[in-house]
């Protein structure tokens, strides 16, 4: 009889990143098309009055804590979605070297931009 050594199973930490990926993907699916249409096309082309997104309006919105929170989520959360995909796409494309470094760079980038936006918003809030 062959006796099999019980296999060791190592739990992955992927649920953390998958959760952020899912939340970001959901937000992106619902919000990003209209956001791009507004900020990148309709307003710059003057189809909607540029006044719709003027400094004062945006600044006062960002100066409330809930406004700042909304901006943070809209700007930063999609990055946790996209960088997760980019990380896995590297594997799909056969870039096998330094997987753990790829991971640090990808999620590190999303983290860094999140912190960047967070500090800016904090600055505006406490101004």
């Amino acid at each position: 009889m062959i006796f099999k050594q019980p296999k060791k199973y190592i739990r992955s930490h992927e649920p953390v990143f998958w959760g952020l990926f899912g939340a970001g993907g959901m937000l992106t699916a619902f919000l990003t098309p209209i956001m791009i249409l507004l900020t990148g096309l309709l307003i710059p082309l003057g189809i909607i009055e540029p006044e719709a997104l003027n400094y004062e309006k945006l600044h006062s919105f960002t100066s409330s804590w809930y406004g700042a929170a909304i901006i943070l989520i809209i700007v930063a959360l999609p990055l946790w979605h996209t960088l997760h995909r980019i990380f896995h796409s590297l594997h799909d494309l056969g870039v096998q070297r330094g997987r753990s470094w790829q991971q640090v760079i990808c999620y590190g980038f999303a983290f860094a931009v999140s912190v960047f936006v967070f500090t800016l918003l904090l600055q505006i809030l406490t101004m």
Partner: protein
Amino acid sequence: MSKKLTPSEKRLEIEILRYHPEQDEEPYLQQFEIPYTTDMTILEALQFIKDHLDSTVSFRWSCRMAICGSCGLMVNGVPKLGCKAFLRDYYPNKITLEALANFPIERDLVVVMDDFINKLEEIKPYLIPEKEPQFLTKGTYQQTPEQLEKFKQYSMCINCGLCYSACPQYALDNKFIGPAALALIARYNRDSRDAGSAERMKIVNQEVGVWGCTFVGYCSVVCPKGVDPAAAIQLLKVESSKDYLIGMFKP
């Protein structure tokens, strides 16, 4: 004995990837021409070739009715069951047959399935009762139609391996447990009579468990039995995430 083709018969060109380990360095394509009728399957075409044109062509089959799962092969690059794919869907174009992708070729259209079978075995594909298994004299395990419905779809798998040859993640890294094995885990974990979830979740929770999947979704497209492994995997990702959260609070 060779059957004479009458000129009035419609014909179809079939190309087969041949490989004889005793003599060939690597596989090569060989052309055949067969008489065509609208009711012929790919498997029947192969049987015609073996009976009348070249008896050395090797391929697997048994039931001829999409139940045994042994006749999987690539038809023009798409994983199919030979007995469930019809020539009429390709006629008059040439058909190229190849051994199931992502598996090593044993010979011609026969692949080495050991890795796949080992993975199916690894997930403990049987009911693990909560208490001591009870004798039949004490009565059977009861289940409502609703409880059956929760896993029935995932129990339809015939272990044909088509989903593995459709899965780029398995192709990239064959340590990935793969679609059918995960669907089979869902089949048992969702069964009200089973209490083995905790053991199987250890497999699911690994990097090469459910997290090896990037939701390409092709497995569910090629599956000949409508199992939808991609859906089973998504549900298991949610389960694994819950398991992760619970694991954080009670080590």
